[in-house]
Each structure stands twice: as structure tokens, then as C-alpha cells.
């Protein structure tokens, strides 16, 4: 765990204060390059036409929806095993960002699906799994928002996150089984064809850009959360000292 290296939240605040502006600049540059390639260079797909442009954001969102959950699971592990204070902060702050990216994966997928399949939504195995993931994010946020004490909230949501990790393969398997049993024909396969390099390069750059964006947002949210906990602690001291 890299977070162990700077166990002290104060040091974390200092370090991120110097790193964040640079990271933001790199993110913006990567987006500029990626979007340039997507708009002016990348070719239209011979089957899907120009709608393939949606892929350059849809795939990064789908990737981040999983990456974000992995980040949360790692942080949850850090919370439960090492009881590291920054680990709960990381897990808590990743949840809303992950939910937003998962929502965008669903929304952009729907906007891509309408012209391609003629419907906004199908209960395809892959889509359904992402929807279940989205609900799990919202459930985690709801759990964190319901428990007022951050330490207790962190433990409870860490357990739920890890239970989710154990369950994800089972959910994926059962959803595959459920759908193929009923309706094998309408399953849309994205990884079916190999992607040409002229599309792959912009896609990878966009994926990198969104991953960097996630890092920037996550670090910013973590800084806020550290301050929020400090304020909470200070208010409790103030209440105790005001007799």
C-alpha cells in the first residue's frame, strides 16, 4: 500500500497540495490530445458509423466504474487490516466519484445503444451487471451517509465493500446465466471484433485522461474529507471545553 508511506494526514495534505496542480495540468493536456484525436483523426466504424465516437468516453467510464470499485476495495482492506485513517477517507471519497462514472457508463451506453439496437436499454448481461454495480455504489453512499460517526461508518462500509468484491463474480455469473437462458440472440458483444490501431490509440489516451481525472477528483475529495474530520474533532473539543 502506497498510502502507508505517508501515514500522517497532515503530510498527505502537504504532499497533495504540491502534486495536485501538476496532475491537473497533465490531465488537461491528456484530454486535449485525446479529444483532438477523437474529433479530427479517429475514423468512423464501417458498421457503427460515427456513433463509435461515443465509445471513446463510454469505455473509459466503464473501465473507471470498475477501477474505482477496486480502489475502494483496496482502501476497505486497508481500513480493516491496518486501520489506516487515510484508507477510510479514500474509500469514502471514491464512492460518489465511482457512482458518477458508473452512471455515465450507463447513460452513454444507452445513448449509443439507441441508434445501434433501436432501444435505450436491454437487460443484457453486461449492462445488467453494471446496473447492479451502480446500485451497490449508491448503497455504500447511503450507508456512509446514515452513520454519523466516521470511524463506525468506515468499518461498516469497508465490510460491505469487501462483501461486494466476493459477490461480484457470483453476480456476473448468475446474470450471464439468467440472460443467456432467456434471450441469447440480443446479446451485444463489444469485445467481439478486434479494434484497429487508429481507434485503439485515441481510446487508450482517453482512458488515461479519465483515469487521471479520477485521481485528481479523488485527491481533492480526500483533502476535503480530512478537513471535514478535523472540523468535527475541533467542534467536539469546543463543546467539551465550553462548560
Amino acid at each position, binding site marked *: 500500500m502506497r498510502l502507508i508511506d505517508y501515514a500522517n494526514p497532515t503530510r498527505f495534505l502537504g504532499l497533495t497540495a504540491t502534486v495536485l496542480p501538476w496532475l491537473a495540468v497533465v490531465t488537461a493536456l491528456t484530454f486535449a490530445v485525446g479529444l483532438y484525436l477523437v474529433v479530427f483523426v479517429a475514423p468512423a466504424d464501417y458498421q457503427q458509423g460515427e456513433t463509435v465516437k461515443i465509445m471513446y468516453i463510454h469505455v473509459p467510464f466503464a473501465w473507471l466504474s470498475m477501477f474505482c470499485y477496486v480502489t475502494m476495495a483496496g482502501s476497505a482492506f486497508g481500513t480493516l487490516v491496518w486501520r489506516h485513517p487515510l484508507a477510510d477517507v479514500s474509500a469514502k471519497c471514491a464512492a460518489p466519484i465511482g457512482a458518477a462514472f458508473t452512471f455515465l457508463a450507463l447513460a452513454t451506453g444507452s445513448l449509443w445503444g439507441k441508434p445501434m439496437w433501436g432501444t435505450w436499454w436491454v437487460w443484457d448481461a453486461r449492462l445488467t451487471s453494471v446496473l447492479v454495480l451502480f446500485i451497490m455504489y449508491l448503497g455504500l453512499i447511503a450507508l456512509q*451517509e446514515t452513520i*454519523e460517526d466516521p470511524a463506525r461508518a468506515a468499518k461498516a462500509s469497508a465490510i460491505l465493500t469487501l462483501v461486494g468484491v466476493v459477490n461480484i463474480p457470483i453476480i456476473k455469473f448468475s446474470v450471464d446465466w439468467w440472460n443467456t437462458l*432467456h434471450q441469447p440472440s440480443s446479446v451485444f458483444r463489444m469485445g467481439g471484433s478486434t479494434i484497429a490501431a487508429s481507434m485503439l490509440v485515441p481510446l487508450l489516451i482517453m482512458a488515461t485522461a479519465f483515469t487521471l481525472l479520477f485521481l485528481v477528483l479523488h485527491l481533492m475529495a480526500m483533502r476535503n474529507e480530512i478537513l471535514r474530520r478535523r472540523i468535527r474533532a475541533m467542534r467536539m473539543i469546543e463543546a467539551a471545553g465550553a462548560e
Partner: protein
Amino acid sequence: MSALSALFVREMKLATRVGGGALMGALFFLIVVTVVPFGVGPDLNLLARIGPAILWIGALLATLLSLDRLFQADRDDGGLDLVLMGEAPLELVVLIKCLAHWTATGLPLVIASPMLAVFMNMEPVAIGATTLTLLVGTPALTFVGAIGAALTVSLRRGGLLLAILVLPLTVPVMIFGVSAATAAVQEPVPFATPFSILAALGLFSMVLGPIAGAAALRHAGD
């Protein structure tokens, strides 16, 4: 600021702050609607046909399950005693609490319903009709549910009992809500008739709910 507007503002603050759970109802709604296709299968035509009913059942359950703390929180901290002693008529207090609860919990359900209707593969007309019926019908569910919340205010496990008590009372709202929503897509049946009955039920429950709820709360202390 008058007593009742102060009450509305406080209820909204409580609902939207940490632990208030304003959006919990909408989340529950989403889950109910998502689970249905796992039960009935992913057949889009079937889902489109049962879509309005599923949305209505989801909204009904989400409303009832979110109502159990409507008066209980106030009773547990002693605030209800002060409200009972106050100059503001208890019926209006119940009405305001219901309106605040609907704004914080029911309105998000209505706003979420077009999105969930897409999952049900519903036609644009059906989506519009269902959303409209939910907009008119969910306040009725809240007002009727408030009677159950007031009756179960002093019980430890009131939540499930509340649903048992109130579900039969919501049958008329369900019937006319779903029939108005389906009438919009099925040609021969008129939309306006069931819809106006639904609106009438909404207005009726807006009167009945506060009166019955206030009566139940007055006797809860004895």
C-alpha cells in the same frame, strides 16, 4: 416566520442532512424496479406491458417504508409532546409534515420514474402518463401512510405493521393510478376518467390523512 413554515423548513433540513435519508426512498424504488426483470425475465415486450404497474408498486413500497419515522422520531425525543401542547392545530402539523415528507421523499420518486421507465422499455406516452399519475398519486400514498405512521408511533417495530395496516387502504389509489397509466397507451379506454378519480382520491386523502393522523397522535400519549 410562522409556526407551520418553520416546521416545513425544519423537516426539509432534517431530511436532507446526514442520516435524513431523503434519497433512500428513490434508491429503494430503483432496486425494486431492477429486481423485477430478474423475476419475470428480460422480455422487453412483457416488461413494457407491466411497466406502469411495476413503477407503481415500487413507488408504493418506497413511500410506505420511508414513513415509519415520520412521527416516531418526534415522539422519541419528546418533541411530539410540545407539538401537542402548541397553538398550531395538530391536523395542520400533520399536513405540513406529510407535505415536507413528500417533497423530500415522494418527489424524487416521481423524478426518477421516467429513468426507471426506460429500464422497463416503456413507450414515451406511457412514460409520461405513468409519471403524471405518480405525481398525482404519491401524495395520496403519503397522506394515507401518515395515518399508519401515527397509529404505530409508540410501537418499537412499527415499520412492518405500518405497511400491513396501510397497504389495504392504498388499493384504490393503486387501481386508478395503474389503470390511468395503462389507459394512456391502450386506445379504447379513456385516460381522463381514472385520472380524475385518482386526483379526487388524492384530495380526499389530503383531508382524511391529517384528521385521522392527528386523532391517532392525540391518543398515542394516553
